[in-house]
Structure formats: structure tokens, C-alpha cells
């Protein structure tokens, strides 16, 4: 990689803004399909309004949602790639610049210790002070380096969880539990239709990372049989767009099953994603 630090930062800033303001083609297609299938007029109105919002957001480069989210970064580094000195600092600078230009929501909490928990120290007025979560790194073949920016909003954080499931040596037991969690989560979420992200791993960290990885790679138009089974089961709830009732409660499921350990327990992580998830954009260096 021969890019300078300011060049890296500029590309990352662009990715932050694109992630926040743009629906990808597979996302638009999923919504268009849902509009056609939805029979309830108020549910259709919600779906059409979300598509209209995406059109305006993309055209005017405005945030799709005012909860501009916590940046989560996924870095895929080619086996033959070399990262220049200062690469991570440049990425951090790019995120900060992207959030300022967006502008992101100024939601960084000031103060130390309990003050930072009870919010009594107030908020930073600088959108750029919203620091990204720790960077996840994976290796890939080749010379390329790819950085994906995901912006994770707060609603789905309340509705998600990472917990052990006793599988009783039956995949169906785990699936039934996942569907139960998902129904519980989306029933209270409001921002529907959503998208479910699941990771199944050996530890809490691994499962949660797998769920975020599922969001990084997920495509609304490419769904495995298992993913379709979960989506169908959750849509049977009839919760519908904005919780008003209807057939489109979730548009898709993104599932990653990682390595497992010999045990009667699986660690499952769910993010009950909202109607804009996954807000993501990639930059290739």
C-alpha cells in the first residue's frame, strides 16, 4: 500500500458517510419485494416511506437515521499486503472526520467512572468524539486490504443478547431458541422491518464477533435454507413494519456458525437489527 495517511483518512471518512446515508442495491431490492407482498396499507406506507427516506438520504447525503451509530470496523488484510506506518491512526482520523462531516450524532459521554455511566458529566458537542469499537482483523488471500465500516445503532443493542444455549444434541433446539429471542426482540424494537444477525461460537466474544461479521458479509438476496427458515418463523409473528402488523417483520437473517467445542452448550449472539441495518460501506486499499 502506497497511500499517505491523509489519503487513507479521506477514504475512511467517505466510507463512514456512505454507510450512514446509502441503501445498497440488495437492500433496496428486499424493500421493493416486501412492498409487493405487503397487504396492509399502513404497513405498505411504512415500507414506501423507508424507501423514500433512502432516496432523499442518498441524494442529499443525509443520515438515514439520526442515531448515526457506533462505528465498528472490520479489517481484512491480504497475506501479501503490508500496512504502512500510522495506518491505524489514519483510520481513526478518518472515522472522526467522517462523523464530523456527516454530521454524526454528538453522543459521546464525558467524565470518568460512574459519571460516565450516569451521564452526569454531560456530553461532548463534537460528533467526532464517538470512538469506534475495537477493530476486528481477519486475513484474506492476496495483496488487498479491505476496511468495512459498520454503524451500529442503539435500538438493536437493547434487543440483542449473547448467551449460552443447551442444544441437547439437536440443531432444531438451538434454532427454536434463536427464533424465540428474535421474536421477543423485534416485538419491542419498533424500527421494523429489521434484519437478524446471529453468530454461534465457543465464547461470548467469538459469538458476538461472528454476528457482526454476518452483518459485514450479509446480502438480502442471498439466503441459506437455515436463514430462510429463521426469517419465515419470525415473520409468522405478524408484528410487521413499525409493529403495526403485517408480513414484513424481518427482511432477512444473516447467520455465521463458527468453530464449536465439544460440549452440550453453544454460545449464541443475536443482534435484532433495525430497518436500516446493516449500515455499512467498504473501502479497498
Amino acid at each position: 500500500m502506497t497511500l499517505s495517511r491523509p489519503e487513507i483518512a479521506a477514504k475512511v471518512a467517505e466510507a463512514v458517510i456512505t454507510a450512514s446515508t446509502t441503501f445498497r442495491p440488495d437492500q433496496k431490492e428486499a424493500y421493493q419485494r416486501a412492498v409487493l407482498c405487503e397487504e396492509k396499507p399502513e404497513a405498505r406506507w411504512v415500507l414506501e416511506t423507508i424507501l423514500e427516506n433512502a432516496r432523499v438520504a442518498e441524494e442529499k447525503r443525509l443520515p438515514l437515521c439520526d442515531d448515526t451509530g457506533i462505528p465498528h470496523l472490520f479489517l481484512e488484510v491480504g497475506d501479501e499486503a503490508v500496512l504502512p506506518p500510522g495506518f491505524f491512526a489514519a483510520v481513526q482520523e478518518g472515522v472522526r472526520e467522517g462523523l464530523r462531516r456527516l454530521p454524526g450524532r454528538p453522543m459521546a459521554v464525558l467524565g470518568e467512572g460512574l459519571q460516565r455511566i450516569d451521564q452526569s458529566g454531560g456530553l461532548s458537542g463534537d460528533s467526532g468524539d464517538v470512538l469506534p469499537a475495537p477493530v476486528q482483523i481477519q486475513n484474506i488471500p492476496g495483496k488487498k486490504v479491505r476496511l468495512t465500516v459498520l454503524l451500529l445503532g442503539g435500538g438493536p443493542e437493547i434487543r440483542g443478547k449473547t448467551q449460552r444455549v443447551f442444544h441437547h444434541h439437536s440443531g432444531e433446539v438451538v434454532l427454536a431458541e434463536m427464533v424465540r429471542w428474535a421474536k421477543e426482540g423485534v416485538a419491542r424494537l419498533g424500527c421494523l422491518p429489521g434484519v437478524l444477525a446471529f453468530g454461534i461460537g465457543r465464547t461470548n466474544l467469538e459469538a458476538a464477533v461472528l454476528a457482526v461479521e454476518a452483518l459485514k458479509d450479509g446480502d438480502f438476496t442471498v439466503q441459506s435454507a437455515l436463514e430462510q427458515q429463521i426469517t419465515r418463523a419470525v415473520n409468522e409473528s405478524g408484528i410487521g413494519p413499525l409493529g403495526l402488523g403485517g408480513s414484513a417483520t424481518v427482511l432477512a437473517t444473516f447467520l455465521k456458525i463458527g468453530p464449536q467445542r465439544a460440549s452440550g452448550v453453544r454460545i449464541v449472539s443475536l443482534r435484532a437489527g433495525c430497518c436500516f441495518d446493516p449500515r455499512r460501506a467498504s473501502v479497498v486499499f
Partner: protein
Amino acid sequence: MIKIFPPVAEAQISSLKIFDRLVISGPILAGRDAALPRLVRLVAENRLAETGLDLRGAVIFHTAVSPAGIGPTSSNKEEIENSIPALSRAGVKIHLGKGSLHPETVASLCEHGAIFAVTPPVSALLTSKIRARRVAAFPEEGMEALYLLEVAELPAIVAAAHGQSVFNLNGAKNPAPKGGERQ
């Protein structure tokens, strides 16, 4: 489409039912997790006059107000949902947000002649409906301060009115909220 111009009269609330589509134009309050419990305390301590606000007939939108725009936050977050009964008693007629409410909250809305409406979190569109904004109270809360907004044709759908709720209609198939759980 029913036009709402706050302050909202009791007679208009009586005529509204679930699934009615609304467009709201005029002054509305905007507040969420940090501001609403503080507003409830001001009312309880009889100090609302300090803010110069009148809650009679008011519309309160559960949103942050920031350079990123506005958009409904989950109304079933503890601090927001718990503010609904007291603020309805103080005269608020329309609580606007998103997400399902507990049955006891729906009942308290009915008791105080108020309703709950929802709107999609479409910030790019909703933000374009703001004509004016100012901090009405608690400026130290930043984007979570209480704001007074002037909006033009903000869209919403009635989700709970007169003891009925769109969220109950899915009822049998929906997992019931656990007792006391307020996420």
C-alpha cells in the same frame, strides 16, 4: 389523513382511533431518556412555570435533537415509558415515538385522555419537517435536552387510543412482555 395543530383539544383526541394517519403541524416538544424524567419531576414539584411551557394539549416527540436530525427513539425504554402517565395527567395529549407499550401504559393513556402515535425512524425525511427549534429546558443534556420544535406536516399513525393498541392485535402471536421488564 387527519390534521393536528397543537395544542390538541380533548374533542379531537376522542375522535381518533388506532391506525388513523396523522399529520402534525405547529409547536411540539421533543425529549427522551434524560429530559422526560426531569420534566416529570418539575411537574411533580409544581415548577413547570420556570420553563414557560404549557403541557395542556401538548404533543411530545420521543427524539433526540442533534445535527444528525430527529427520529423516534424506543418509547418503551424505562425512563420514557414511565414518564407517559404523569405527563398525560399534566395535559400532554399525544406521545409520539416508536415500539410497543405495556398494557398498563395503554390503560393510563386512556384514563388521562391521551394517545400514543408512532412514526418510522426516517430521519432524512422527518428532519426536513422542522421549521424552527430551540432548547426549552435542561440545556446541559445536549442532544437529550428538552426542545421546542416547530414542525410542518410531520407524519404519524395512531398506535394506542382509548384502551386499544395496534400491538395487542398481533397479541396471540406476539410474545407477551415479561412482568416488570422495561427495556
